[in-house]
Structures are given as structure tokens and as C-alpha cells.
């Protein structure tokens, strides 16, 4: 399983697997926002938590169809399925690799982009904490969605329709945590609730993703 993880990471970094692409998407999304709503720092500061979370969520979403698609097309997925590694483990490792290549860079870049959007000072630690805790849930949910749609040609739009409603609770608690942090209110409660969602997703969704993969590999 560690081998699988190393392979996925190596593929993502070396073979033009779009390692930096979601980061670039996050950057351009954040850059576009002031053009849409106007450059008033007051307005930007108010909407910055939500915008940063939305950007991270969409950046995650755009890289989802890559999780299983290439392995499915060239038959790697069949090979792994016949190997002794359980599919649940494969799904968990895929989610972890997706988080390391997508979620982690987003967490690291978010404070810089927060500066661009004039995010208030006390919100920064909460932003990093919320993204660090929340993006694993996004990766786990996304892996499940990717496993559901792996057999479908051009399933990208369908994937977003399936996955985005599932992202809703994470987004609510994540953005709420940062907003409350910016206003100097108690931000710990939404953070803990989001941690609960993350842990629940990590515990349950690899099994659901493996079930979906088994159906698709029949």
C-alpha cells in the first residue's frame, strides 16, 4: 500500500500529472474574485473566508476525475484489483495521494491568497487549521465520487453534480470557522464539528468507494 502511495505521488509529480495545476487554479480563482465584486477592501475582507474555501473546494473538485481515470484506461486498476491489496486500501491510498498533491499545497497557499483578499489578521490560524482539517474530507468524498463515475465516458459534470452536495457540510463548517475567527468569535466549535465530519468520511468512504470500484470492475 505504501508502494501504491509512492507510485501515485511519483506519477503526479513527474509525469505531468497536474501537481501544480490545482494550485494555479486556486490562485486564478482568487485573482478573479476582486474583478467580480470590486476592489473595496472592506467587502473583500468580509467575503474572503467563503471565497478561499470555495476556491479550495473547486480546485479539489477539478482534479478528482484524474484519481482513477488513467489507471482505469490502461488497465492498472484491474491489475491492482487482482493483487492481494484490498480495494479499500487502494481507495484510502488514492485519497491520501490526492490530498498530498492537492489539499496540502492548497493549505500552504491559502494564507498568501488570504493576504490578497485582505483577510483580517486573527483569521489566519483558523484558515490554516480549518483547511488542514477539512481538505482530507474533500479528498475522501471526492475519491468516492470518482470511484462511482470511473466507468462513465465524460463523467466530469456528473461527478460535480454528485460530489458537490456531499461537500456541503464541510464547506459550511469550514467557512463558518474562518468567518468566526475573523470576527473574533468562538471558532473552535465548527472546527471540531468539521473534524468529526473528516474522521467520519475517512472511516466510511473508502469502503463505499471500494464497493463502487468492484461494481465498475465487473
Amino acid at each position, binding site marked *: 500500500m505504501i508502494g501504491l502511495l509512492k507510485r501515485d505521488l511519483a506519477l503526479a509529480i513527474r509525469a505531468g500529472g497536474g501537481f501544480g495545476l490545482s494550485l494555479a487554479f486556486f490562485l486564478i480563482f482568487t485573482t478573479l474574485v476582486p474583478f467580480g465584486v470590486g476592489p473595496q477592501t472592506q467587502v473583500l475582507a468580509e467575503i474572503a473566508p467563503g471565497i478561499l474555501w470555495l476556491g479550495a473546494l473547486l480546485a479539489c473538485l477539478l482534479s478528482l476525475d484524474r484519481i482513477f481515470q488513467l489507471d482505469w484506461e490502461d488497465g492498472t486498476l484491474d491489475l491492482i484489483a487482482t493483487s492481494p491489496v484490498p480495494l479499500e486500501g487502494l481507495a484510502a491510498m488514492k485519497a491520501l495521494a490526492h490530498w498530498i498533491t492537492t489539499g496540502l499545497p492548497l493549505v500552504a497557499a491559502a494564507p498568501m491568497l488570504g493576504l490578497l483578499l485582505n483577510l483580517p489578521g486573527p483569521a489566519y490560524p483558523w484558515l490554516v487549521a480549518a483547511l488542514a482539517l477539512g481538505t482530507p474530507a474533500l479528498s475522501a468524498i471526492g475519491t468516492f465520487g470518482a470511484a*462511482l463515475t470511473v466507468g462513465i465516458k465524460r*463523467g466530469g459534470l456528473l461527478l460535480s*453534480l*454528485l460530489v458537490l*452536495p456531499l461537500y456541503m457540510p464541510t464547506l*459550511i463548517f469550514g467557512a463558518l470557522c474562518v468567518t468566526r475567527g475573523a470576527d473574533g468569535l468562538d471558532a473552535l466549535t465548527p472546527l471540531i464539528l468539521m473534524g468529526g465530519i473528516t474522521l467520519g468520511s475517512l472511516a466510511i468512504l473508502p469502503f463505499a468507494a471500494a464497493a463502487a470500484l468492484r*461494481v465498475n470492475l465487473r
Partner: protein
Amino acid sequence: MASIWEYANPRKFMATSAALLPWTAGVAALCLVTGLVWGFFFTPDDFRQGSTVKIIYVHVPSAIMAINAWLMMLVASLIWVIRRHHVSALAAKAAAPVGMVFTLIALATGALWGQPMWGTWWEWDPRLTSFLILFLFYLGYMALWEAIDNPDSAADLTAVLCLVGSVFAVISRYALLFWNQGLHQGATLSLDREQNIANVFWYPLVITLAGFGFLFIALVLYRTQTEIRARRLKALIAQERMA
């Protein structure tokens, strides 16, 4: 004693549902006509809300059935996953568009009532928002059914989606309560209370509730029959090709 699993046999299901269908449809029509006419024309106006209160006879039953339709899909999906009865999977598939339309009716009638009463068509209130999310879940579920060619794979994948979606729908509901204070009043109907609303409004409401329930049963039976016939047709065409 006959077991409930006998109805997993499509032939048995077709015979029983064909016998039941006129009765459920008839009872639904009777209840809906009686309840709606009684509710719309023979109940007094509310002293604050005027005649807008009468939208309750459509709004509340359709909202209740919208949630129960998803619950029925969840049970049917579980039966499919555990016992592999095809009728069950097809019933879940048949219920989805019906539930979606009930959700849409609840949202639309709510907006129509909210405009004069709250002064807004839409408000990001937890109840309203969770119904919007329920609507999105229905859309995703139906889109996944449409997207997959192999019927068994489609049934399996949509069942998994329905199970995971149910968990996330419940989480969303409580997340939304945390997120925003509501404008929507509390539940009108509750089993805990002695009297929910004044009897003049209560009787027609119960009748329309029953009407919507029977309407749902009739539509699902009818659509499941259609799905079974479509499946048989496909099998016949495949046989012809082989011969």
C-alpha cells in the same frame, strides 16, 4: 404464510400491483379532491394570514412525501444491496422522479406563500436550504441512473450513492441548523402534541396527507410496472437478435 419476498418475483409483483393500482389511484383522487376542495373553499381564513394559509394543504403533504420518498428509496436500495431483488432496485429508480417533483412542489408553494407573508420568495433558512439540497440529491441520483448503460451496475452504484447520500443529507440538515437561524416556523404537525392545529384546518389536512401518500404509492407502482415492462422489452429484443 406468504412471505413479503414473494413480491420480489416480477410476475407476482405485476399481478398484485395491477390489482392494487386502480384502488390506490382511486383513493388518492378521492382524498385529494375532497381534501383540497374542503380545504380551499370550506375552511375559514386565518385571521392574520388571510387565505394564504390554505397553501398548507399542498405544501405540508408534498414536503412530507418528498422526505418519505427518499426514505423509501433508501429502504429499496438496502433491499437491493442485501437481497439482490431487481424489483426493489427498479422501485427505487421509479420513486426518484416522483420524490423530486414533490420536493419541487414544496419549494414552489413555499415561495408563493413566503412572498406575501415573509416579503421574500426565498430565504437562506435551514429548512428551505435543506430542501434545496434534497432536490440536488434527487438530481444527482437520477443523473447517475441515466449515465450508466448496464442496468445491474447502475442499480448497484445508485444504491451506494443513495446510502452515502442519506448520511450526508442528515449531516447537512444539522450543519444548516448550526449555520443560520431560521425564518421558517417550527413543525406544524407533531405526534407529541394533543392538538396540532384547530380542527377546522386539521381534518382537510389529514385527508390531503392521505391523498398525497396514496398518490405517491400509485405513481411508484405505475412507474415500477413501466420499468419492469421496459426491462422485459429489452430482453425480448436481445432474444430476437440472438435468434
